[in-house]
Every structure is written in structure tokens, then in C-alpha cells.
């Protein structure tokens, strides 16, 4: 059953085409990886799905319902969560509060009830805090719950972002380079978390450069280069795909020769 479908999606910025006639079909429960050299358009895809960019052409479907051109908050409300390439946690709040912020979808109390400190609100707050601690437990940050988010080391910040994205109760989650800057140990840890998410029935779209993780964990890999899909298939197929190798090696050669 297709949970996400992109049909002929195109996007340009000021005349420069960053995504061209892109098709994508992700099935429920899948772990899909989206890879490609820098500037290939991977984050563009995530931004299009989550509503931060509006597609110039084409349709995006989530559970068969048309997604574009909805606003990002509406899309999150439908059950799509995401993390960002550049970590976007809330620095002035504590680790737990960052996750609590993510429970926005669930929060029921109205302004009046909050202002007057009614029991109903206090109950809800207490319940959310419990839920929040569970999310932190899941990613392994429970001991830092009351620390200021900015005090966390980089690797843990990425876990915090994941915990927060999970508090939106997503059916489908997109992770943008979640292991950038992480140690091997932390990467293994995240890999375990991703498997657990899959077992919980959450579909994952992973944008990543760290090939080891991508090859280990994905069911299927989609490869982008210069805004075009150049390959799609199982990890084995992709590892041996000539076009893919060329795209990556070609870039490296270019960079090398320019440096000289």
C-alpha cells in the first residue's frame, strides 16, 4: 500500500531547476533512503513533501490524498513528521520542553482553561510530561530531561530532534542527515532506533550521506543527481549501479581538479 507518492514533481528557483519530473512511491512500513551528491535535490524533496516548498508541477499524495499545496503545519497534522539538516531545536527550552512542544497536535485545553490553571489542564500537562519522558527514554535522553537544550552535545541534539518529531505521532517520518557528526557508536544506536520505529509501523524516508547506514538499513534506495532520479532499487543493485558510481566519483574528480 503506497503511503507516499510523488508524480512528475518539478521545482525551480529563479530559473534554476532543482527537481525535474520526479516520481517516488513509498510503501507503508518501508525504510527508503534518498541519496545523491551534494546539491542533488534531496532536501528539496523533503521540503516539498512537508510543504515548505510548493511544487511548480506535479502532485504529492499521502495515503492517496493530495498533499500540495497544503501548509507545513497542516501536513504535520496529517501524520508526517521530519527532522532538519541543520538542527532546529528550541534553545531556550529544556530537553523535555522541546519534546512537549511536539505534542501540539494532542493538546486539547483551551486558553481560558490554561489561564485559570484549571485542574483539567494540570492533568493534561502531567500526562503530556509522562508521554514526553517516554519519548526521551526511547532515544536515550531521559537523564537530560531538565537540561537546557543548548547544553547538549551535537549528537544528542539530533536525537532530541528525533524525539520531538516522534511526539507529533507521525505515520511517516523524514530524517534529513540524522547521523551527520555522529560517532560510529551513535550511528549504531540510531540504526537500532530506526529498526524499532519500523517495527512500530512507522514508514521512514532517510536522506543520508553515510553509506554504511544507508546500505544496512534500507529496503530500497532512490538516487538523485542534479534534480533527476538516476537510479532506484535495492542496496545491492544501487551499489553496483554504474550511473550512481559515476555521479559520486564524477563529483569527487571535479572537486579534486578544481582544488588543483
Amino acid at each position, binding site marked *: 500500500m503506497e503511503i507516499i507518492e510523488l508524480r512528475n514533481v518539478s521545482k525551480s528557483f529563479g530559473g534554476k531547476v532543482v527537481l525535474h519530473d520526479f516520481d517516488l512511491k513509498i510503501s507503508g512500513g518501508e525504510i527508503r533512503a534518498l541519496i545523491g551528491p551534494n546539491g542533488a535535490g534531496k532536501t528539496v524533496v523533503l521540503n516539498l513533501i512537508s510543504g515548505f516548498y510548493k511544487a511548480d508541477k506535479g502532485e504529492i499524495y499521502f495515503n492517496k490524498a493530495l498533499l500540495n499545496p497544503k501548509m507545513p503545519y497542516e501536513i*504535520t497534522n496529517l501524520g508526517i513528521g521530519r527532522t532538519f539538516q541543520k538542527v532546529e531545536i528550541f534553545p*531556550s527550552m529544556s530537553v523535555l520542553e522541546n519534546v512537549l512542544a511536539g505534542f501540539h497536535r494532542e493538546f486539547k*485545553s483551551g*486558553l481560558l482553561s490554561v489561564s485559570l490553571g484549571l485542574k483539567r489542564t494540570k492533568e493534561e500537562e502531567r500526562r503530556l510530561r509522562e508521554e514526553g519522558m517516554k519519548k526521551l527514554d526511547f532515544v536515550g535522553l531521559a537523564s537530560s530531561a*531538565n537540561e*537546557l537544550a543548548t547544553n547538549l552535545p551535537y549528537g544528542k541534539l539530533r536525537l532530541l530532534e528525533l524525539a520531538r*518529531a516522534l511526539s507529533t505521532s507521525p505515520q511517516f517520518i523524514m530524517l534529513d542527515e540524522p547521523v551527520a557528526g555522529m560517532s560510529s557508536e551513535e550511528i549504531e544506536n540510531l540504526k537500532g532506533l530506526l529498526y524499532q520505529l519500523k517495527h512500530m509501523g512507522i514508514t521512514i524516508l532517510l536522506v543520508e550521506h553515510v553509506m554504511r547506514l544507508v546500505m544496512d538499513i534500507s529496503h530500497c534506495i532512490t538516487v538523485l543527481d542534479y534534480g533527476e532520479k538516476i537510479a532506484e532499487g535495492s542496496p545491492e543493485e544501487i551499489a553496483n549501479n554504474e550511473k550512481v558510481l559515476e555521479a559520486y566519483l564524477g563529483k569527487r574528480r571535479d572537486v579534486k581538479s578544481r582544488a588543483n
Partner: protein
Amino acid sequence: MSNFKKTSSKTRFTYVVYLLVAIFFGTSPFFIDAYFLYIFNLIGIGVILTIGLNLVMGYAGQISLSHGAFFGMGAYGTAILVEKLGLSFWVAWPLGGILAAIIGIIIGLPALRVGGHYLALVTLGANEIFNLILIHSEGLTEGVVGLKVARPRIGSFAFSEDAYFFYIVFITCVVLIWVANNIINSQFGRAFNAIRESETAAQAIAINLYEYKLIAFAISAFYAGIAGGLYGSLIKFIDPTNFDLFLSIKYLAIVIVGGLGSIPGSLIGAGIMTVLPELFRAFGDYQHLIYGFILLIFVIFLPRGIIGLLSSLRGIFGVKLRA
């Protein structure tokens, strides 16, 4: 675990300070003279306005230069409902606050579609337009001539004594600070913070930016309106010049001086900035100049305000600046 303890003792300290301040001000009418009583009344009203402004600027991160209009709506709204429609102060006053909130939403609807400089300009423009409306609606507001306002009464008892009036101000202050605290420590407060710190991430956790900015604006305008209703009754006479751009800038300065996004900061800022020009009372017109210089100095050298300064000097208020 040790971090949790630290938070707890910081919170305990904060509550003790609040309690001491409350006791001091609560008993003040017994030991201060009429002049200071008047000042304290002004401070109380200023605190209410500042906390409201801080909610929208310090927490939700949206600038507003239209608080003069909200303050004015509260003052004129209350005054007109009492003087022209014969309503009791106790009905007119909260209505004044609600009217101000409605104006807040009316201004916010267009204004909050943009941010930064543009938002500042739109709110400034809205303030000017409101001021013009105040001046030109002579039938309702008496225009530039001004409106006389009576003190509130319960039955035959009138709050004509500043000391009695002060208790209205004081209790309102305490209640509205408590309410602000409740809002800040709730999901609403977290949503506001989220909007201020990362609109992108806020959207990704299903926060409708526009809706929540409007909510912050409306709450903020309500506070200003309540403060306005009290102000009109305090000084017993209002005219449009009380609610012009100067007021918006004055409170911008107060919020920055106290410390953006800090309730203690709002108290300190409102306190200092009300007392300071009184010290120069003899030089009346220097008030404006002083506000200008203080704003300039703080925004360049002390952008996090006095609370920011204190929190850098000692760890007492903690690294966390919010509430």
C-alpha cells in the same frame, strides 16, 4: 538528577522573591505618602502593560508598535462605556479589555502575515490610524479636547482615594501575573517560544504560526486594554496624546530594559522606567529624551536587559531567562 534539584531551588528562590515583593507593595499604602502611592499606581499599570507586551515580543517574538492603540482602546472603551452608556466600571473595564483584544485581532490579522521590519511598520501605521480615529471621532471621544473619567464605585463607595484605587491595581497585577505565568508554562507558552526560536521547526510540529501569533497578540492587547481601563480611572482625564507612538516606543524601551521574555524583567523594567522620569520631574520635558537614550544604550550594549545583565553577573536567576 542534580540538575532537577538546581531548578527546584531556583524556583523556590523566585517564589520567595515574588512573595516579598508582593508583601512590600501590598502593605505599602500604609507607610508611603500620596506621591509615591501615585507612582506605585502607575508602576502597577505599567507592569500589566509590559507583561502583555512581553508575551508577544519576548515570548512569541513578534514586535508590536501598536500597544499605544490597545492601551488607548482600553482607556477610551472603558471611559465611553461608563460615561456615555452608563455602565458600571466593573462591567465596562473587562469589556474595555475585550475591545482592546478585538482591536488586537483586527490589527493582527493583516499585520501578522508579515514579520520583522514590515510588522513593525504595519503596527506603527495601525497605531497612527487608531490615533487619528480617536482624534476625529469627536462625538464619541471628544477628540483632542479629551474625556473626563470617574473613579470606579461599588454602591455608594467610590475609590477616589489613591490608596483604595491602588488595591484594585495591585490585585489585578497579581492575578494577571499569575495568569501570564500559567500561559507561559503551558503548551501555549511552548508554542510561542517555538515560534520565536524557529518558525520552521514550529511548523514541523503542527503549530499554525499565524493562529498562534494572533493569539499572542490578542492576549497582549487584552492586557494593555485592562491596563488602559485602570489608567483612565487613575488619572481621571484622557486625551489622544496619551496613546500615541511615544507610548508604544516607551513600552518597547521598558520591555528591552527589563529583559525580553522575563516576568521579573517586566516588573523591574516597568518599575525603573516609571520612577526614573519622576526623578527628573523638575525637568518635565526631558522625559522623552531620557527614554530615547535609555532605549539606545540598552539595545546596543545591554540587549538582554537588566535581567540579562543580572543573569550574566550571577547564576541566581539561572541561565534560563523565561519566567
